[in-house]
C-alpha cells in the first residue's frame, strides 16, 4: 500500500502552480508553524549558537531575529553585527518561508544565496530577517527578503536565493537536470 500518501504530496506540490485544492484535502493540521518549530530548532546547532528567535510569520514568509551579541562582531572598530551571521539568519528564514509556502516539512538544500549589503546595522542593534518564498516548482523554491534593524523600509540588506527540495522528487538522478521545464 503506497499510493495515497505519495499522491497527496504531489497534489500538494501542484497547488503551488495555482491548481485549486480539493475540499477535504486540506493539509492544514500538519501545516508548518515557524513559531512552534523555532522552540526546538533554535535550541541546538548553528542557529542555536547564534541565538536566533522567532519574530513573525505569514502564509509564505517568516521573520526571524538575530540578537546583537559582542562575539558576533565583524570589525574590531565598530559595534555592529558581522555580515556572516546575517547570511545564516537569512538562510534559516528562507528555509522556514519555504515550509510555510509548501505547508510541509520536506528538507531543502540551499543552492544559491545572494546577499546585497545596503549599510551596516546600527551599533548594538539586533537584526531581523524577513524572507518570502515567492515561487515553488517541483524541484526548486525561490526566495527573496530583507534584513533590517527596526525599520523594514530602511533595510540593512536584500537577499535572493534558490533552494532545492530534497527527497520530494520521484525521478532518479539529479532533478536539476530537468529543472527548467517545470518552472
Amino acid at each position: 500500500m503506497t499510493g495515497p500518501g505519495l499522491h497527496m504530496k504531489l497534489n500538494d506540490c501542484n497547488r503551488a502552480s495555482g491548481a485549486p485544492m480539493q475540499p477535504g484535502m486540506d493539509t492544514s493540521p500538519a501545516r508548518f508553524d515557524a513559531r512552534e518549530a523555532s522552540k526546538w530548532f533554535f535550541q541546538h546547532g548553528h542557529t542555536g549558537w547564534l541565538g536566533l528567535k522567532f519574530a513573525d510569520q505569514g502564509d509564505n514568509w517568516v521573520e526571524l531575529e538575530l540578537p546583537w551579541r559582542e562575539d558576533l562582531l565583524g570589525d574590531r572598530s565598530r559595534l555592529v553585527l558581522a555580515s556572516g551571521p546575517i547570511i545564516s539568519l537569512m538562510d534559516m528564514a528562507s528555509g522556514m518561508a519555504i515550509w510555510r509556502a509548501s505547508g510541509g516539512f520536506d528538507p531543502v538544500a540551499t543552492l544559491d544565496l545572494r546577499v546585497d549589503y545596503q549599510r551596516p546595522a546600527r551599533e548594538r542593534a539586533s537584526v531581523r530577517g524577513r524572507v518570502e518564498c515567492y515561487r515553488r516548482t517541483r524541484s526548486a523554491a525561490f526566495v527573496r527578503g530583507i534584513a533590517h534593524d527596526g525599520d523594514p523600509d530602511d533595510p540593512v540588506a536584500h537577499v535572493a536565493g534558490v533552494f532545492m527540495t530534497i527527497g520530494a522528487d520521484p525521478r532518479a538522478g539529479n532533478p536539476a537536470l530537468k529543472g527548467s521545464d517545470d518552472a
Partner: protein
Amino acid sequence: MMPDAREPLELPAYARSLGITVCGEEAGMPVLTVAFGPAVEGHPAHFHGGATAGLLEAAGYAALHTALLAAGRDPQLKPINITVQYLAAGKSKPSFAIGRITRLGRRNANVAVEAWQDDRTRPIAAAVMNILIV
C-alpha cells in the same frame, strides 16, 4: 612601520567565535579551517549553510587583507555583496577555504572563494564577494 604580510592574521570576532582559524597558506593566500561541531551544525551531522558561508566570507576577507598588506595598505573593508553557491553537503569533518583576488582596485575588490573538505578537488561551496575598500 610597514605592516608585515607574514604577521599572524587577526580574524574578526565572529570568525574566531565560530572556531575558524588560519591553518596554512597556498599561493601566498591564507587557508582557513573550521572543525565540525555544534556551532556549525545544520541538518544532523551536516554543516549549516550559514556556517559554510561564514567560513567562505572569512577566507575572502583574509585573502584581501593579505593582498592589501603585501601592497603596504591597511584600509577598512566593508561588504558590498556576496553570492554563495552550494555545491555539495558539508559533512561532519573539518572544512577549509581559501580566497583568490580576481581584481584589486583602489576602491573595491572582487574576490572568489572556495571551500572543501577532505578532497581539495571537490569543493562543497564557492562564493564571489565584492568588497569596498575605505
